[in-house]
């Protein structure tokens, strides 16, 4: 969830990156300044949200249109000098109820991830190399839902300007970006961001490693929180190669509920409900 939410805000600047990792310099240098500016502005606009919690319902739909419903919750803490911290707690199906994942995302380098297995009471370290794996059997991959730090993408290109998908009255900037991590399932992504100060994302196209269109994600029903932060209430992801789709409905978002570091460690993970 968090990844998607942050699609709204985090697009890359490589300023941090090239000062830290030399060989990213070349990649960074190729970035298109217009695409980079829009991404950076969107990222900066969303700074200062602090923390939020949300309840989500996912509807998984197969080719035949049969539906399966999954419930889960998310908790996110903004970390100012590094990537955000995220918790997902799964409420259904019942055999995985209570399972939770904890992620410390980092601007540079792989994220730290832990999985809590309630039946064994085990907190298991997992590698973030599984980022292209399916999130609870849905059409969302872990990387679609993870923290979208600016540094996680490079090679941005400005393509064109056109009316926004699902929102014709707004003008959208169409840009492409390339995931930095080699284990990403995508060769590149195309995004439609509107020209308001928040640069809300209306659509993302994901291209697989062979550069064919894999999935399309559309965002709808944007709501404003704390008079500043825009979040969509619905996400509709379709996989063009399998014909399967997933709807994600955000039931409730609460900002600034007072979460802190203490809610995001291995101990708190093991008493999560």
């Amino acid at each position, binding site marked *: 969830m968090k990844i998607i939410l942050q699609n709204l805000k985090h697009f890359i600047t490589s300023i941090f990156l090239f000062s830290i990792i030399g060989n990213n310099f070349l990649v960074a240098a190729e970035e298109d300044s217009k695409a980079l500016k829009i991404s950076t502005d969107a990222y900066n606009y969303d700074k200062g949200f602090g923390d939020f919690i949300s309840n989500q319902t996912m509807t*998984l739909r*197969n080719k035949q249109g049969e539906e*399966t419903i999954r419930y889960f919750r998310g908790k996110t803490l903004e970390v100012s000098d590094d990537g955000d911290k995220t918790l997902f707690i799964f409420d*259904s*199906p*019942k*055999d*995985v*109820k209570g399972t939770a994942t904890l992620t410390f995302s980092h601007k540079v*380098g*792989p994220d*730290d991830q832990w999985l809590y297995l309630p039946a*064994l*009471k*085990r*907190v298991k*370290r*997992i*590698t973030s*190399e*599984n980022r*292209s*794996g*399916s999130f609870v*059997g849905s059409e969302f991959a872990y990387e679609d839902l993870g923290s979208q730090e600016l540094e996680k993408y490079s090679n941005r290109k400005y393509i064109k300007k056109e009316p926004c998908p699902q929102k014709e009255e707004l003008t959208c900037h169409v840009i492409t970006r390339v995931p930095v991590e080699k*284990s990403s*399932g995508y060769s590149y992504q195309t995004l439609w961001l509107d020209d308001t100060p928040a640069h809300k994302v209306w659509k993302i196209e994901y291209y697989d490693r062979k550069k064919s269109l894999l999935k399309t994600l559309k965002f709808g029903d944007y709501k404003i929180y704390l008079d500043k932060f825009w979040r969509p209430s619905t996400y509709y992801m379709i996989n063009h190669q399998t014909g399967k789709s997933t709807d994600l409905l955000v039931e409730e978002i609460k900002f600034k509920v007072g979460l*802190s*570091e*203490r809610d995001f*460690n*291995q*101990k708190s993970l093991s*008493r999560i*409900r």
Partner: protein
Amino acid sequence: MKFFFFLLISSYTFICFSEDIYWELNNEKTFQTRVFHKENAYEYQKNTYSVNLKSELFLEPQRNINVLIEPEYRYDYHDKERSLFDISQGYFLYFNDHSEFKIGKEKVFWGVTELKNLVDIINSPDEASGEEKSKLGQSLISYSYINNKFGFIDLIYMPLFHEPTKVGKNGRLRLNLPTQNYNTSYEGGAGRKIPSWAIKWQNSFRETDISLQLFRGTSRNGSTLPKLENGEIKYFAGYERITQIGSFLQSIFGPIIFKFEGIRRNGQKNTLYERENYYSYITGIEYVVTRPFDKIWDLNIFAEYSNDDRGSNSNDIFQNDLFIGTRINFNDVQGTEFTQMLTLDLNGDGNTGNLEISTRLKDSVRIAANYTSYWSVNNKDTLYSFRRDNYLGIKITNYF
């Protein structure tokens, strides 16, 4: 036990009258059967089936207080030693920003490796359950100090020792004679009512997790002692007082997780019924294959090596063994999973294999089928007693 019943009933009643506290009630019932297709090796052994009921009541009367009560009942049709009623967990937990205080009965997991967890020492094993990692709740009082920089420190005081369950005479997967559940002997200051204690420190540094632990108390893995009773040889359980220092380390290098668990244990008896201090370790890797065969599957491969320096006097069946495992999660709506495990004894004392597939029949029902086998067993090894115990297991769990 009566007290627990009282607590249980009063809590269940209590939640009906209070609307403003958060609570959850989760139940599961499981039917399990194991079909041993070879003729029994020892007298009285039978194929059997069992039913398991588990209920979990969780209460959060305040934001920083949790109460959990988890009674469990297991009924085995033939092996009455396997039947069990237990409050497998039941505790009161208070926590704040820097600490956690817990009193009651709990299951605690320590460790990082896959085949077995040498450092996992708080709970006694539920051996009769037939599941490798199943354990009994441990009565304890624990205090944890939590610091995001220095890690966690757990101090655990365990006033009682809960004797591991044993397979009875009608059960499979036991020694040539069943271990009796009376006349248990305690040595070196061990005892059912003699307290044990443990301390653990754990911290994470980006890709690396590390821990150090100390345990002093009654050994959770006993010895089997043959004794003459009325002119008949019978097996009895014996437990010693031990001291164990343990440590685990794990570190991530891209798709590879390197894992290590090591212990030094003093006071435990070996298979010659002599006390022998020893070192034991298990180390290996977990390898994550992304998008295997271009599918959305998760594929994890495990390779571990386990060693115990007592050699053939060790009562650990994995004293010099290689373990290869595979787990595939198909990421389908049914949550279908396939696992394969293979252990090879490098001394030629016996190998084990296990295949398991599980899937959801509907949102509240999960079915698992497994086939477990033992081969090339040497008659000096514990595994020799299981030589005819290859089996097909089926388990259906309903969550409600």
